[in-house]
């Protein structure tokens, strides 16, 4: 019997029956979100938050089915999930199901680090999960999909780093999509205690090239006073996938929070990231490296909200567009009335590599305090012919020269990744994209 499609009224019921999460507050929240999902309208282009977006694929969302089965047999996938050697922890999820035991470096558990699946955390650390779970929303247009995410989520990842614990090697999470036409809801909750430091890398992949998927992922980062978290998502879903990534980064005082998106896959990827600064003295960085080709569409909406005074935020989103791809970047810096001495920047650069690409840029500012330094910049252009000539004159073929220039263009973001294995993997991905 086929799995039910998302518009089937029975979907939620089946999900609840099969879900292993038997906790009242969580069930109540899921019920409320299912009602909210049904009530909220589908997005329309006249809504500013969906300006320039291509809604065709999103309107056809019902072609996807809810995944209701148990954990698949996925030994080969587990093998493929060991790309990084030096890790502090590893979790592998296939279609939202745990397929291998959680790995956590022994010494870390002793320091109070919690790295486990969301289902496990709900049972073993109910107070912590309840304190942080879905306390923030990006508020950038995908509220309907966010509600669907909570209603149907089956598992996820929970990383908690206690106060004063600093961890060098990254925690890695693999989220795989396997079942054709399936729908998955990866969820990440990353909490760094006071003066702690940790690095979380998420890999998003499909087991097959030809399957199609709907992915509605959420990731929430909480940085307590003085914490230094870094969160990277390598989005590499296959080219038949419609993906949503709805993130919030919440910074208290004196934090250094960094989030990076490396976008390679998806037919259409909608990403909403809201960086909120609640405390003074923080520095929040948001970066994205986007290499769309074919007919891919990357639609990114961001907010940098400064609530407390004397903090800094810096956003750099770089696109290199090839073939017939299109991008939308809509970013807004909001400086609230009390957020004096804010220092905020936002940059979107578009490198146009083909005559059929389209880049839309909507960098915005809403400033309600006066003692601030805020600016944004957006550029759209092509590879400089005079720079290309420099390469050609030295015997470097045109294609190779373009590739080298593309590397140079992205290097500004790659060097910020702060992990040698990730740096070389990111370069590899860019090279693969460029080779088509």
């Amino acid at each position, binding site marked *: 019997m086929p799995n039910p499609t998302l518009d089937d009224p029975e979907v939620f019921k089946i999900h609840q029956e099969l879900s292993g999460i038997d906790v009242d507050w969580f069930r109540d929240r899921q019920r409320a979100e299912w009602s909210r999902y049904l009530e909220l309208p589908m997005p329309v282009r*006249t*809504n*500013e938050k969906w*300006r*320039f977006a291509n809604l065709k694929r999103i309107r056809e969302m019902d072609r996807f089915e809810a995944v209701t089965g148990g954990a698949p047999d996925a030994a080969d996938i587990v093998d493929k999930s060991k790309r990084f050697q030096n890790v502090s922890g590893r979790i592998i999820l296939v279609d939202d199901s745990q397929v291998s035991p959680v790995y956590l470096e022994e010494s870390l558990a002793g320091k109070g680090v919690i790295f486990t699946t969301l289902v496990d955390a709900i049972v073993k650390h109910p107070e912590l999960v309840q304190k942080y779970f879905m306390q923030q929303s990006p508020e950038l247009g995908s509220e309907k999909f966010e509600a669907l995410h909570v209603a149907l989520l089956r598992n996820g990842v929970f990383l908690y780093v206690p106060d004063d614990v600093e961890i060098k090697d990254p925690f890695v999470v693999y989220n795989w999509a396997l079942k054709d036409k399936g729908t998955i809801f990866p969820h990440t909750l990353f909490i760094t205690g006071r003066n702690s430091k940790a690095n979380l890398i998420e890999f998003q992949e499909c087991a097959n090239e030809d399957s199609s998927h709907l992915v509605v992922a959420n990731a929430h980062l909480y940085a307590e006073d003085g914490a230094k978290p870094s969160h990277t998502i390598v989005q590499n879903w296959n080219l038949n996938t419609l993906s949503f990534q709805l993130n919030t980064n919440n910074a208290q005082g004196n934090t250094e929070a960094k989030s990076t998106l490396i976008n390679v896959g998806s037919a259409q990827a909608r990403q909403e990231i809201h960086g909120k600064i609640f405390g003074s003295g923080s520095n929040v960085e948001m970066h994205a490296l986007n290499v769309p080709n074919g007919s891919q569409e990357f639609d990114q909406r961001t907010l940098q909200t400064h609530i407390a005074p004397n903090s800094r935020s810096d956003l750099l989103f770089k696109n290199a567009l090839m073939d017939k791809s299109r991008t939308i970047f809509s970013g807004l810096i909001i400086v609230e*009335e009390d957020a*004096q001495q804010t220092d905020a920047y936002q940059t979107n650069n*578009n490198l*146009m*590599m*083909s*005559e*059929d*690409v*389209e*880049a*839309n*840029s*909507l*960098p*915005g*500012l*809403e*400033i*309600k*305090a*006066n*003692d*601030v*330094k*805020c*600016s*944004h*910049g*957006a*550029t*759209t*252009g*092509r590879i400089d012919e005079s720079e290309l000539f420099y390469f050609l004159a030295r015997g470097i073929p045109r294609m190779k020269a373009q590739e080298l220039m593309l590397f140079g263009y992205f290097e500004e973001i790659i060097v910020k990744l702060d992990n040698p294995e990730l740096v070389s993997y990111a370069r590899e991905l860019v090279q693969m994209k460029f080779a088509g």
Partner: protein
Amino acid sequence: MSTTPDLNVERDVGDFHYDTTYEFDAGVGLNESTIDYICKVKGEGDWVKEFRMKALKIFQDKPVPTHWASDDLNSIDYDKIRYYLSKGQRPSRTWDEVPDDIKKTFERLGIPEKERAYLAGVEAQFDSEASYSNMKEDLSEQGVIFTGPTEALRDHPEIFRKWFGKVIPIGDNKFSALNSAVFSGGSFIYIPPGVKVKQPLQAYFRINAENFGQFERTLIIADEGAEVTYMEGCTAPKFETSTLHSAVVELVALKGAKIQYITVQNWSANVFNLVTKRGMAMDDAEIKWIDCNIGSRLTMKYPGVVMRGPGARGEVLSIALAHDGQHQDTGAKMIHAADNTTSNIISKSISIGEGRSTYRGVVNIPRNLKNCKNNTECDALLINSNSRTDTYPAITVRGNQSTVQHEASVSKVSAEQIFYMMQRGIPEDEAMSLAVNGFVNDLIREFPMEYSVELKRLIDLEMEGSVG
């Protein structure tokens, strides 16, 4: 939080009004009979009436654009507005023939004096109709036409109809539809091929009556190789109730022509100023909007240039100054529609007290165009801790043959700069004025001298009492 003290010293140079008796009054509210009335009074033909009726329907059907714009738009009560008011005057060619009460108004605003000093032609509109219209004789002899749309419809229908409503269609937005339904007054200018008008032509728009809506319509056509500078100024007295000004301005620059359109707006703080302005530039033509918005309660104005011919150039230079209770929602639209077209937007805004300034922009470069360039710079200056500014540009580029760059920055007047000036004995408020003038100085230099002096003076007056 500090609020700026209300200083009504000299700031509102236009804040006075004389009681006037009107011969023609379309009454309050807008419906088909309002349009019948306007058409009858103006003796208009069938096609104009059809045009107005079609526009009325569109206006009634289109929602208020509050999904992106300010909710304050919802406070306009269209049923309480008077849409046509005139004394039945025909524009006179000498100030002596202008009715006394109207003449008194324009004399107090200094218009006849300015005409003598440096203008090539003047039109002065009082409520719905022009009261005075005069142009230097040598220009008439060269075939330059400077008149109102009513006269243009009657005397030059072949040129007027060809372009009227073509750059800004009736249904472009709710307010262009409103203007198209009830337009009255405004300017029609035609510059024949090769004629370069050295001195500026000026129109002055004055709202005198309470609860009144002014809906002038301007169409300027510069034929091949022609050049013209047009300036408009606007004022209204301060009334208890709000007033609506909703103009439509269409510019057509044919091959190699140049149009410079300068606005210095100083509406009183109760005016909703909702204006649609757009130019169409053909091959190698140039359209430059210089836009200065000081008064009004809410201004929504985004002058645009459609660059239809290769080599066309569009430019918007704008200054906005928003005081307490004011929202200057201004910007620019640059639509590239041919190869080798270039556009430039420079926008500077100053928010004082609880004033709010917004930049909203559109830059569009479609596929297959080669060597198009756009440069946009927006700078916002915030004077008080409760001032506000926003920037919302939207840039769409298709293909890999064009270059676009956009930059925006927000800052306050540097404390060091003020300290430096105060150390040399300059009082704080004067130092602040100097700093603000410095901020806009490079733009003001682009204005004709007479205007830049007036503008600097207006900025000084606006800055009074803003410190602290």
